[in-house]
């Protein structure tokens, strides 16, 4: 997918990634709370669910989730720094660093789960 020409630059994509990761995380929160609820109240069902998380597809989805969380966190820090501190010119580098760090973190998480 390519954006319209006037949007086709790295920091616009960083903006889109931040938006999408934010919205997806918001959508995921109810599910997350539900699983937490199971952990507290119905152990048996939680164990069933945890078995389910051994499936590779679910592992991949978890990788995605950690990536979304990390990319939203690091990207958010970049934006907060941009707005609160003295201006720094290397914004594209910071955005790339945020994405790379998120990818690294998610990969570590994936490796750990095997």
């Amino acid at each position, binding site marked *: 997918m390519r954006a319209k*020409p006037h949007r086709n630059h790295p920091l616009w994509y*960083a903006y889109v990634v931040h938006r999408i990761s934010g919205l997806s995380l918001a959508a995921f929160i109810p599910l997350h709370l539900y699983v937490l609820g199971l952990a507290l109240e119905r152990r048996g069902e939680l164990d069933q669910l945890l078995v389910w998380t051994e499936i590779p597809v679910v592992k991949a989805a978890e990788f995605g989730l950690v990536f979304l969380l990390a990319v939203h966190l690091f990207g958010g820090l970049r934006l907060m720094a941009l707005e609160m501190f003295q201006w720094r010119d290397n914004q594209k580098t910071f955005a790339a660093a945020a994405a790379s760090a998120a990818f690294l973190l998610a990969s570590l998480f994936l490796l750990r789960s095997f």
Partner: protein
Amino acid sequence: MGDRSNSIRVKVSRGDDRGRHFDEFDVPALESQTVLDVVTWIQRNADPSLSYRFACRVGMCGSCAMTVNGKPRWTCRTHVSKVLQGDTLTIEPLRNLPVVKDLATDMSEFFDKWTSAESRFVPTKTREDAIEIVQPATKERIEADAAIECINCGVCYASCDAVELNPDYLGPAALNRAWTLQNDVRDGGKNSRLRAVTGEGGCQNCHSQQGCVQHCPNTLNPTRSIAGLKRLATRAVFKREL
């Protein structure tokens, strides 16, 4: 010298907001030709009814901005060779502004927003006072210097998603100007101006995705200026001044 053996295929947007279509022209390709040269050639040689706007032709007046192959640009200083896609050039009016006719947009709202942002200097001295010296090395002067060379071309405004989302948003150029005045030690309108550039259509609408920085022909950085205004606003809120 001119090489008239090849030509450029030019698609030009015609009409206004009630209805727009493209007309196609073949324009002789010349060396060092600008997009404005192409538009002028069409109006002089192919269709005198084509409307567009320009004045200085040297990147000073800011009146010639159009959308060229999808990106907002100052046409008098955009060389065709730099933006040609294959042998085609698509020329449209600037985005985010009403179209008067063909390539000429109505820039009133753009300039009205400069007024709403209180983008005018408020003097604090009389003719009896001595001239105030502004030291070039001070932090304020350096901030203002970085933002001062705006030619009001509207390119940043046309590239801004926040303007598209919220037509009341003051936009990068007006806010950039306001920032230069907030850094002018002689100016007396800072409190009122800060109120004018925050809230409803103010600086908080900006998502910092920097389309304005990407496209400003004078390589200004409105995002930096807007971030500065956001900082001033936050500080004022904590001090209960806003």
